[in-house]
């Protein structure tokens, strides 16, 4: 891999930028790998990268039915935060947020991590109390958060309507100064390039169509490019987890629903933080291109169509107009959807599947982009060792039977 640097930029300028090498190879699948990862989203690619980097497992393929990063990784609103209520979540999401801090340097790829700060508004007394509880919980877990009084909220984000007779007045906010955003595509590309450099085969346009299980053990997968044998299989397919589980003969505590987002036409810089308004079900930030990036709640019924319902767009922007009156005359530029994998407690599943040799990483639902490096980090350890590491262990599928829910749905009604 030729490193990217300011010198490389200058050198390549001499040849009119015609000489850059491809960021990753386009290999044909080999007949056998030690580990096959299904799904080249951020999580699958991060898993492959950390398998090679941290555990020396390099005979790895990542198999993707479309193009890498084309699933939810390339469709999300890129909010990164770790102010989660439960201890297990704080450990996982803060590990991930921390990894984002120097990921550009580690991957030698500018993922444009922008710790601009994430503000979660309190707009009802109940929400204020719930967020204060989260504030104290995160502090106990060593996650830096602060309480922002209404005046601080206004100074952090002047376009917020702080009028006292607003239907949902601003009562304060939970402020995580080192939360923020990153460029979603770049996260996928950076992990793909770095994993490829360590010998991982990223195989695109190759759908997994069947999982071969012999005597209760996985032995390989059937793909649109033929059969591939493997010793271990990692399923990291987000909204298609139930489909892959079905191929391998087990069921998941997952339901797939559509989640959508939209951007406005680009305008001049008007907000430099991320604001989430969970009571009214909407959140907003401004992209480097100037578009306001807006998201809301999931569509709420089983859905594999990768599109959203129109009335949800309307609901989200209607809700946000009162808090951000400035957006009332803006036009919508684009709208899109992704298929997200929802669990009953709104926490992910990381660990062993009921079939020997199969590992699952899914259930990230509406909020897994922020977890991309952390998820890959602990899932790689889980696959390499055959047993979950400390961070992953609480997120086993068995928690549903054991009544050990990691309940994040109360703390974060919409949150991403």
């Amino acid at each position, binding site marked *: 891999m030729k490193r990217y640097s300011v010198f490389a930029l200058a050198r390549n300028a001499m040849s009119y930028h015609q000489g850059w090498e491809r960021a990753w190879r386009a290999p044909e699948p080999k007949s056998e790998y030690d580990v096959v990862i299904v799904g080249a989203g951020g999580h699958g690619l991060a898993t492959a990268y950390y398998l090679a980097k941290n555990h020396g497992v390099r005979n790895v393929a990542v198999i993707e039915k479309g193009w890498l990063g084309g699933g939810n990784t390339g469709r999300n609103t890129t909010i990164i935060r770790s102010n989660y209520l439960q201890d297990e979540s704080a450990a996982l999401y803060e590990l991930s947020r921390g990894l984002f801090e120097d990921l550009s340097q580690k991957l030698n790829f500018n993922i444009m991590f922008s710790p601009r700060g994430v503000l979660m508004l309190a707009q009802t007394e109940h929400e204020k109390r719930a967020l204060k509880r989260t504030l104290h919980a995160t502090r106990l877990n060593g996650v830096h958060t602060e309480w922002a009084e209404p005046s601080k909220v206004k100074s952090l984000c002047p376009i917020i309507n702080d009028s006292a007779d607003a239907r949902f007045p601003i009562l304060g906010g939970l402020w995580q100064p080192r939360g923020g955003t990153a460029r979603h595509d770049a996260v996928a590309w950076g992990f793909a390039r770095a994993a490829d450099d360590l010998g991982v085969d990223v195989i695109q346009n190759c759908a997994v169509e069947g999982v071969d299980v012999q005597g209760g053990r996985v032995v390989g997968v059937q793909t649109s490019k033929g059969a591939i044998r493997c010793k271990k299989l990692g399923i990291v397919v987000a909204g298609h987890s*139930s489909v892959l589980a079905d191929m391998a003969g087990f*069921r*998941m505590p997952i339901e*797939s629903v559509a989640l959508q987002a939209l951007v406005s036409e680009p305008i001049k810089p008007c907000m430099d933080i991320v604001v989430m308004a969970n009571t009214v079900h909407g959140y907003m930030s401004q992209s480097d291109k100037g578009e306001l990036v807006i998201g809301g709640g999931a569509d709420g*019924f089983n*859905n594999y169509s990768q599109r959203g319902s129109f009335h949800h767009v309307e609901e989200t922007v209607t809700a946000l107009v009162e808090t951000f009156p400035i957006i009332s005359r803006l036009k919508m530029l684009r709208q899109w959807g992704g298929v997200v994998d929802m669990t*009953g407690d709104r926490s992910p599943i990381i660990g062993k599947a009921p079939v020997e040799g199969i590992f699952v990483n899914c259930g990230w639902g509406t909020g897994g982009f922020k977890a991309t490096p952390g998820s890959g980090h602990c899932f790689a350890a889980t696959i390499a060792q055959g047993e979950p590491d400390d961070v992953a262990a609480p997120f086993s599928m068995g928690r*549903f039977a054991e009544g050990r829910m990691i309940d994040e749905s109360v703390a974060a009604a919409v949150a991403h």
Partner: protein
Amino acid sequence: MLRIPCPYCGPRDHAEFDYGGDATVVWPALDDTTEAWVEALYFRDDPKGPHRELWRHARGCRLWLIVERDTVTHEISAAHPAHPGMADEVTAQSQAETPSA
């Protein structure tokens, strides 16, 4: 946006309905095993394709329906009353309530 053909009210806009999830779940007996209850509560087929599901016409007749819908195309092939016998009762009632002209 879906349009659900309510057997009581006719085709109505998605926004009038609440979703009730997978209609194929069979609730175990109260004294059944934990495993059976965990399966029923949390585990789903979550199929990509035809899905049998519950909807409640909350902003309409307020009755529960079983709808056959494709989760990829959103095509709705059928919508039945969730409680057999309810249809006749509702029709009888509404006829009785209709004021004579």
